[in-house]
């Protein structure tokens, strides 16, 4: 059993516990907590070389993925962390004359990307050399990432004026922080209307409606069953998501597939807001795959006290898979891109060797 694992520290246990029992909720807070955890790992753990640190981080990622397989964000932060360790190490490790060369090669990045693997295999470093500056550099880099995370919602929201216009009818589903901020930062003089599918059984759509109403945005709640009926009048669908898979598909709140299909039928554009940390290099290959879905309490769809409750099987899945062909545009902090482009962003953000943490 993993229990003898030295990497399973008390602080990690309490982080996982807090996420598990719902003390830390929402992807933003989770990633924040994870970054803080790594920051303290950098400072407090026993490590001298980049290789040792990477082992610690990788093990942490593995434990998190075992404990909370549905929280893809944890894995993403771990991959990001590994990537910056590699970068910082390479920078220190590289002989002076080569630095210039890499500067040039960054420009020709597409070609570099394709050839990257073969090149790397030749001069693959073992990350075992000792550098005293490494810790310092990593902390600086990590703080940058934290800032980036901090600003991710704002960066998204700044683009709102390009996408939402006057007199438009926008449809969204459930509650997403990104969507909330996005809609609220549309310039006040533009009058638009929002239709919110309540997203039963949790009905978090109600939260969004009250929040939008308090900032004087016209909002209407509709039951999930009315999504199709409303769609012909809608100008745009704006969704948040739990994570984006490697093929550009979504793992989003259940109901998202209904929305996307209806939008396709009426040729309504579907815009998905993704802060960068939600991009995961994971594919869906099977609906029964580990941790694709999370099935919630049966109570929420069928009361226990009904006479039939023992005779029927009721499920309350939390997520829907939305295939990439139904999505018109992703908006990230860096700007818009199509599902086809996801592979490219992933390659920029994570090192290919880190895609699979569990191995």
């Amino acid at each position: 059993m993993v229990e003898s694992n030295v990497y399973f520290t008390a602080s990690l246990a309490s982080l996982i516990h807090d996420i598990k029992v719902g003390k830390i909720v929402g992807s933003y807070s989770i990633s924040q907590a994870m970054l803080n955890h790594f920051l303290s790992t950098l400072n407090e753990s026993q490590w001298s070389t980049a290789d040792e640190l990477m082992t610690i981080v990788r093990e942490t990622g593995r434990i998190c993925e075992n404990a909370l397989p549905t929280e893809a964000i944890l894995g993403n932060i771990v991959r990001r962390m590994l990537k910056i360790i590699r970068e910082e190490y390479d920078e220190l490790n590289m002989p002076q004359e080569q630095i210039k060369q890499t500067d040039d090669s960054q420009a020709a990045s597409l070609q570099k990307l394709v050839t990257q693997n073969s090149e790397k295999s030749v001069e693959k470093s073992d990350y075992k050399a000792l550098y005293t500056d490494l810790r310092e550099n990593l902390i600086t880099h990590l703080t940058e990432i934290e800032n980036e995370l901090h600003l991710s919602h704002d960066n998204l929201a700044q683009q709102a004026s390009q996408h939402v216009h006057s007199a438009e009818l926008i449809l969204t589903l459930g509650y997403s922080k990104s969507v909330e901020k996005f809609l609220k930062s549309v310039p006040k003089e533009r009058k638009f209307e929002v239709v919110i599918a309540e997203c039963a059984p949790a009905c978090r759509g109600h939260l969004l409606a009250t929040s939008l109403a308090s900032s004087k945005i016209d909002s209407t709640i509709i039951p999930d069953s009315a999504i199709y009926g409303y769609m012909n009048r809608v100008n745009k669908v704006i969704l948040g998501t739990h994570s984006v898979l490697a093929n550009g598909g979504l793992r989003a709140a259940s109901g998202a597939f209904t929305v996307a299909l209806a939008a396709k039928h009426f040729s309504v554009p579907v815009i998905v807001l993704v802060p960068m940390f939600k991009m995961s290099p994971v594919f869906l290959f099977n609906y029964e795959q580990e941790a694709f879905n999370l099935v919630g309490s049966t109570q929420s769809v069928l009361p226990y006290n009904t006479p039939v409750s023992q005779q029927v099987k009721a499920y309350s899945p939390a997520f829907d898979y939305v295939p990439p062909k139904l999505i018109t545009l992703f908006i990230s902090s860096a700007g818009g891109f199509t599902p086809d482009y996801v592979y490219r962003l992933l390659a920029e953000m994570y090192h290919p060797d880190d895609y699979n943490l569990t191995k």
Partner: protein
Amino acid sequence: MEKKEIIQAVVVADNFSECFKPFTTFNSPALLPLVNVPMISYVLETLNRNSVEEVWIVSSTFPEKVREFIKRGIEEHLTWSVGMNVQVIACEVRSLGDAMRELDGKGMIRGDFILMNFDTITNAKLIPSILKAHKDNCKRDKETAMTVVYNKISSGQRTGNEVVIATNKRTKRLLFHQRIHPTNKEEKFKFPLEIFLDNKEVSLHHDLIDPQIAICSTSALPLFSDNFDYDTRDQFIRGIVMDQELQAASIYVEQLPIDQYAAKVSDWIAYHTISQDIMNRWVYPLVPDMGVCALKQQYLFLKNNIYRNNSVKVARNCSIKNDVVLHENVNIGDESLLARCVLGKNCIVGKNCTIRNAYIFDNTKISDNCKLENCIIGASVLINEDCTIKNGTVITNDCIIMKKEEHSGSLIQSKIPDDDDYLQDSFEKLNDKAYKYIENRESTRNDSEDDLDDQEDDDNDAEVYIKLIPKVPNYESSAYSSETDSDDDENDVGVAQEDSIIFLTEVIDSLKRGFDEKSNPDFLILEINSSRYAYNIQLNEVNFFVIKACFNLPVVLDHADALEGFKQVYNYLGDKVIKNYIKGDGAMVDCLNAIVECCEESEKLKPKLMKTLHFLYNEDILTEDIIISWYEDIDKNWVKVALNKFITWLQQESESDSE
């Protein structure tokens, strides 16, 4: 800033019944696996999710095993170990009441606490809503001892956990409580008339189940200590609710919201139902794939409620129907069929087996062509080829079942315990590793059959349900029911007076001995309380007699100046004993009446009446308002005369105070 209050909880790790025998002969019932996790984990996890910070587990059977489990859990960072301090108290207790008295003795409980049993399976959110309700009750009513939490069920179930209650509709104070007997199909319940006379609005409930969750005030523990005949939670509740005059305490009721689940694993039938409920995700988030306990996901959740560990090997042509949990390294052979069952770690199932409604613990091996239905199989059991095991058979750890055996409704254990309870000849030896317990259970089994049919007619698989009903625990046949009361009433009058005289002499004896030996006043209170229950004396009578006894002590009687004598007694008993009884307005009136009666009996004391009252008034035992209002009601002339001056003085005093 206000200091944050720590939320404490007490978990009783014993059910004080024999329903899980013979498993409980070799291990603590708290560690009996339920869907592959020791049962107590569910309670701990629930408490943890309710952000409880300190938990005491009171354990009397195999406490070292419970302690070992807790220690290992903390090392392994199980979910409940994070942010929660769990401690095991090992003590020899035979009932819940004993456990509570033990806790009271240790004095570790500092405030309101949650009281639960290890066998309560719930996803209730007690905090903040129910805890707040309890705190509000306490604020309104200083005598609140407990807030019990009940859960609504669909009516018609009979598992022995259902209750019929009456509450005050507005305050939710419990006024009547009766457990529904699982086999006597009562159709009528008798409520005392006073309930309806004393309360404006009463609500009656008959659709509630008692999952054994309660929030207790600090005053609950001393109540257990004072009344050492309270053994079970029911006796406690009944004691307080039915004898409201006897106890200055009250109990309130809260209901869980409809979307929260709570049930008690009271016997094997409940074990089966609750296991199925867990697999059907009614108890979310306490479901196998969320990792009850472990901070690690152990199962994949697949269609039809199949939970499968990654390391499980399942032969290609076997069929796994529905509601199945397969733990680490389970191996299932060709052509086997599994439905509604749980398999523990490292279990091996051979070829062509059928397993339905069965619970199989870790490391068990089931050989080819076996048929297992409606049974519980312990850990490390070996079942050889071609066996049929059905109808609620329970096989405990380490047994070996030989080829082609057939068992139906039997209890089999691997060795004969040294316990006295078990007679050697009540076992039939099957082989060195299997002894069958012989017991005439035919009658109970027939009784239960219809019950189970009602519950389970949904499932064709479950034609033969787990029938093993262990002996139904002896529910006290409603001792407090109004019938018995009315029958006894006529005789009571004569007896009651005699009783009170004996009681008075006993109190005098206790006080005299205590006074002479200068023993601990706490013991005196205990002595008085116990005589009080022996003679069934009401609370106000106790107050009356205690005061009377004080004046009838030899010290007072023999002293030249009776008041001086009483002062001596008071110096010793006043703080603890007298103040313990004489608190509250009613008690003061009792005290005054007692003094007057003493004066009438003793010529020596009579002239001192005013001075006695003045002394007690100075000692803050009596208040001026009570004395004055009592004085106005009294119709004895000599008292009026004797106290005239004192009362005038008191009135002046109060007037000057108010100015």
